[in-house]
């Protein structure tokens, strides 16, 4: 196993709808909002943590591989490669996921033998300079507050106590995106395509919270034209 290359995929993430990646508020403020989004501690600007993208891409690829019923919803680990009844194609996909995203330490020997180290590394995505300037010039807000409620099915009106306020990063804001991929041998070249497939699934699904309610729709725009072309032509379910 020898490191032959570190591929870097760079580009922009464009928000197509409001994005909510929760800050996990550890303190309450009088009159403050219920669910705030994650902010850069110095600049107080919104950003997309690399962990949010990595986790979602991994979970979508696992969903597509079809082994989630066999793992009981838990992340795929190297020990799952031994599950009985796995089809060869599924096993190959599982190995790709473990190679790309890593596995837990309990199956050390198996990882060392089959997979090797985690290949992929997602950077935190900070707001692009272009968006920063646009927000400044047009005096736009970086955070929108969306109120939501639940409807009482009998009265047809808002249910008491159901009103809540959710903070979102508004649509059209752009973030700088970068992901590194370690190539440990010629056979790792197929991982590049598999990673792009994962990103495509993310584009088709949603990032962050409340994806089923229209939040977190994103679009990837890649710097490299070949990557952009390749990405556009990916059809995950054909």
């Amino acid at each position, binding site marked *: 196993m*020898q490191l032959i290359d570190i591929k870097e995929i760079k580009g922009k993430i464009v928000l197509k709808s409001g994005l909510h990646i929760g800050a996990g508020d550890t303190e309450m403020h009088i009159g403050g909002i219920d669910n705030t989004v994650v902010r850069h501690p110095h600049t107080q600007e919104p950003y997309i943590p*690399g*962990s949010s993208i990595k*986790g979602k891409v991994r979970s979508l690829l696992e969903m597509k591989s079809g082994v*989630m019923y066999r*793992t009981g919803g838990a992340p795929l680990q190297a020990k799952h490669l031994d599950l009985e009844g796995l089809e060869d194609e599924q096993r190959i996909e599982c190995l790709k996921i473990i190679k790309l995203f890593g596995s837990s330490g309990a199956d*050390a020997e198996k990882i060392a033998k089959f997979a090797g180290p985690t290949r992929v590394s997602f*950077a935190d995505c900070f707001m692009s300079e272009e968006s920063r300037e646009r927000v400044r010039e047009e005096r736009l807000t970086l955070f929108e507050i969306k109120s939501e409620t639940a409807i009482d099915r009998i009265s047809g009106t808002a249910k008491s106590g159901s009103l809540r306020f959710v903070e979102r990063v508004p649509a059209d804001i752009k973030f700088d995106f970068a992901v*590194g991929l*370690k190539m440990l041998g010629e056979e790792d070249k197929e991982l590049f395509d598999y990673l792009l497939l994962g990103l495509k699934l993310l584009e088709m699904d949603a990032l962050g919270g409340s994806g089923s309610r229209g939040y977190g729709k994103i679009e990837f725009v890649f710097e490299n034209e070949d990557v952009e072309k390749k990405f556009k032509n990916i059809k995950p379910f054909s």
Partner: protein
Amino acid sequence: MKLYEIIIKPLSAFGTPLKGDTLFGHFCWQAAYDPSLLNGGLDKWIACYQEKPFAVFSSAWPKFDDDGKFFYAFKRPDLPLSLLFAPSAGDDKRKTFEGRKENKKKKWMKVKEGLLLDFKSVEYLTDKELMEKVRNQATDDTKRIMRGEKYFCSEFTRQHNTINRMTMTTGEGMFAPFTETSFFYYPETELAVFALIDEEATDIGRICAAMEKIGKFGFGKDASTGCGRFDIGEDSELELPSADSPNACYMLAPTVPEAGRFYDHYFIPFVRFGKHGDVLATSENPFKNPVVMADEGAVFMPKSENVFKKPYIGRAVLNTSKSMKQTVVQGYAPYLPFRLEMKI
């Protein structure tokens, strides 16, 4: 050995502090995958690391421009405050006692670019003062965004969770949210890492190439999810630091000093609960045996002047890993020699 300075520009949060021994560990992983980084390969140089270290890294220290001159901010030496801020003859005792609390806040030591540590005239800075110096060299845009920021380095807690693949939501047990702490440097901060290099083994070009890869892929904890990103700035060769009739050494990285070579030590103990990186991070025994070190900023008083003949102090620490027998911990550290006057 030759001394070089490598400038690092942080781009993201860090989960692991940029200390010398951890930087060495990262370089070793790079060399393990890229044999061209060390002449003859990593195994050859690790085998003789105890007698002949091929590279010794310092921790990363802020470098800033103050009125057109460059300075480093090193950690205040781990000497008693009574030595660092000794009152002059005739000073009001009451004022001296009142000033103790203020002095405690001065956690940084300002040292000129030539690395000449003159203990009598050295200036100490608080975290806020350092932040102001770093702020002064920042671009106008950063200054505008950073209004009100008080700290050079801020701690930050992030919440994470694992998604249940069946429900695509969080939940209980292993799917419950948890928090991780990381820290951010003030934007546009520049950090200097000092590297002593044995030119028989490698050169600064290859060290920088490895550092660039580390910065691209991430350093330390949570590297695959965005932490530990940095860019590499300029590198330059420096003269080995010297001083007039030195009798003390100020350490630039965590050290395991050689026994019996020093008659006095001032340090804060630092226990490195080391963990393997890369493929061994997920091995059955990813944890190394703990190593007790003297943290960066320690001051050692050597028994003999011979100590000053070598540009580093300390020793390699072996037998720290159950997963990989060859594992070596960098117990070496570069140092600044200086003259410490004390009333004994």
